């Protein structure tokens, strides 16, 4: 298992980082080496989320790390946040997914769209890991096209709303204390905070996954769920731009995180190739294997420079969601291909839990699809460069 002190750095990437960014990465790397790598295979094999890591991750500031200090968060730059995601996903996509959902998909919308009272109630609790959140947008029949969602919220008398419908593929759903739920209303799509235990709200876990096995994935079911407007409705956003704004934040983190998984696979494959002797030589000496390694490190290096530039632009407030799509699409694809090719270098050993490759490879099949499928990101970029939407009528 790859527990090195150094990330793959072929092009002086670390020389482009500030001291603060280097320290954030070192902190996350140590945590992953000490706390995640020794246990993650067992949790993935048993399809269990390592919930004992939530508190230490919170103590280290990994939850909502780029939100302001006044809510108990670290106030990181976007590049530092990306480096954190890189290291967490080097451990496992399930761990990174937990942090992404908590920070980018739940704390972020509360911060960006919530009332002061909602922010003050939820954000410090969530930063401390005392409350876990999930994000409900995708439905059984509406994935890439969220505008078709059927979940509805109807305004009731006495400052109440009634929610009906269902959500699917929801990370953290069954362990969440609060769900950010997007529902159609008479005034467009609105966001609601629905607390665990609210009558009519259930979150059954989806078992039997072959991917993201160390992460909880759930359905969210709403059967005449009545919530209080003041506590529940996110007042400061209307329309799909609310959830899509959250997804841009999460996709940005995934673009970094996927490279962490790729890095773990590459370093494992390189080490293996240098030590595995066949025909009296390390297999790293064979041209076919060298080509694989050279292509892996090249793609990882390109991906690193892509997300670093994106992060710098994001820190300056100069970026577009289509640029985030490009980074997510490219880097997840790099990670998926790297994991698959790394598996071939390890031969039969590549399928064993002793090595991280098959776990990352299986995880990347989900990451390739969630938070905007690879194909949808292609179409978003296509729309940006041609001015023509291939997926929206008219």
């Amino acid at each position, binding site marked *: 298992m790859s527990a090195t002190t150094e990330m793959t750095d072929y092009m002086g990437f670390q020389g482009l980082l500030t*001291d*603060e960014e280097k320290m954030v990465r070192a902190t996350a790397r140590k945590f992953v080496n000490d706390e995640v790598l020794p246990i993650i295979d067992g949790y993935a094999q048993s399809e269990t989320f390592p919930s004992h890591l939530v508190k230490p991750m919170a*103590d280290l500031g990994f939850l909502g790390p780029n939100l302001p200090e006044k809510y108990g968060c670290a106030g990181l730059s976007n590049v530092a946040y990306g480096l954190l995601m890189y290291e967490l996903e080097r451990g496992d996509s399930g761990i990174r997914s937990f942090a992404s959902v908590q920070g980018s998909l739940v704390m972020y919308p509360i911060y960006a769209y919530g009332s002061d009272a909602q922010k003050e109630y939820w954000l410090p609790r969530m930063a401390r890991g005392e409350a876990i959140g999930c994000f409900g947008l995708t439905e059984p029949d509406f994935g890439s096209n969220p505008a078709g969602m059927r979940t509805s919220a109807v305004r009731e008398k006495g400052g109440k709303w009634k929610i009906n419908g269902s959500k699917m593929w929801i990370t953290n759903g069954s362990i969440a204390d609060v769900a950010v739920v997007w529902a159609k209303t008479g005034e467009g799509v609105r966001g609601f905070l629905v607390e665990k235990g609210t009558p009519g709200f259930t979150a059954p876990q989806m078992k039997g996954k072959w991917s993201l096995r160390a992460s909880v994935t759930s359905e969210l079911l709403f059967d005449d769920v009545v919530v209080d407007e003041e506590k529940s409705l996110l007042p400061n956003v209307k329309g799909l731009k609310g959830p899509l704004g959250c997804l841009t934040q999460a996709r940005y983190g995934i673009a970094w995180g996927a490279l962490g998984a790729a890095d773990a696979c590459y370093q494992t494959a390189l080490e293996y190739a240098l030590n595995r002797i066949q025909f009296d030589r390390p297999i790293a000496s064979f041209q076919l294997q060298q080509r694989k390694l050279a292509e892996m490190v090249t793609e990882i290096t390109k991906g690193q420079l892509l997300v670093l530039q994106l992060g710098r632009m994001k820190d300056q407030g100069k970026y577009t969601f289509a640029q985030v799509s490009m980074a997510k699409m490219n880097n997840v694809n790099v990670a998926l291909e790297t994991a698959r090719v790394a598996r071939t270098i390890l031969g039969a050993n590549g399928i064993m839990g002793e090595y991280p490759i098959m776990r990352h490879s299986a995880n990347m099949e989900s990451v390739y699809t969630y938070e905007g499928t690879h194909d949808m990101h292609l179409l978003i970029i296509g729309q940006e460069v041609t001015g023509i939407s291939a997926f929206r009528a008219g």
Partner: protein
Amino acid sequence: MGELNLVVLVKPVPDPSCYDRIEIDPATGALLRQGMPAVLNPADKHALEEALVLKERFGGRVAMVSMAPDSASETLMEGLAMGADEACILSDRAFAGSDSLATSRVLAAGIRKIGPFDLVLAGNESADGGTAHVPSQVGELLGVAHLANVIRMEVGPGGSVTARTRIENGYIEVRGSLPMVVGVRREINTPRYTSLMGVMAAQGKPIRVWRSEDLGVNAAEAGMEGSGMRPGKLSRPDYRRKGEILKGSHEETVRRIVAILRAEGVLG
């Protein structure tokens, strides 16, 4: 007793995970540190952890003191991120080549310059030099009690100190009182992780750099001139494995293996 003024002696050392990359200058016998990532000496992080726990209990300040080049600030940031309040780098070309006693003179001068102290903590030894001289020498130079090899330590409200020091086959329990210099072993605690909040807070904490003239250390007390000890010959151990494939019948190869092991002194 009020708040504690705590000093932690720290040293940047080559990252132990990169020891396979260490090179030695054949002319001077010195370690070639350029290009080697530096980390806080692992034992010093335990000393810092002990200081931070005492600060949390009694209040006060934790200052790190390091005799190191100016560039050590990057390594010392880790200690500031863990929770130290400030760092003082004692940096001067005149300090280069200091042996452990000359180093201790410089460190003692740095501690005096910070001001009154209650407790100085240090890792018992560094991962590179490994002399374990410094804590005791600093204690002597400052004229206060000192303990080495400390594996447990309690500070009472009145400044009383109860400590355990490791000895072969056991420990000694010692009682004393502040001020004191204490060299700690790694068993004493588990250093905390650096939090991201700590990383952000560290950016605004002071890092002072003091030269020989700031410290009032003259050339005869430090560096090569102030050092009675010179490093002897340093060499890299050869970790390469020799492989020899024995051919022939089982009887022949077993006899050959026994002969090789005898020749190497493994078998009598």
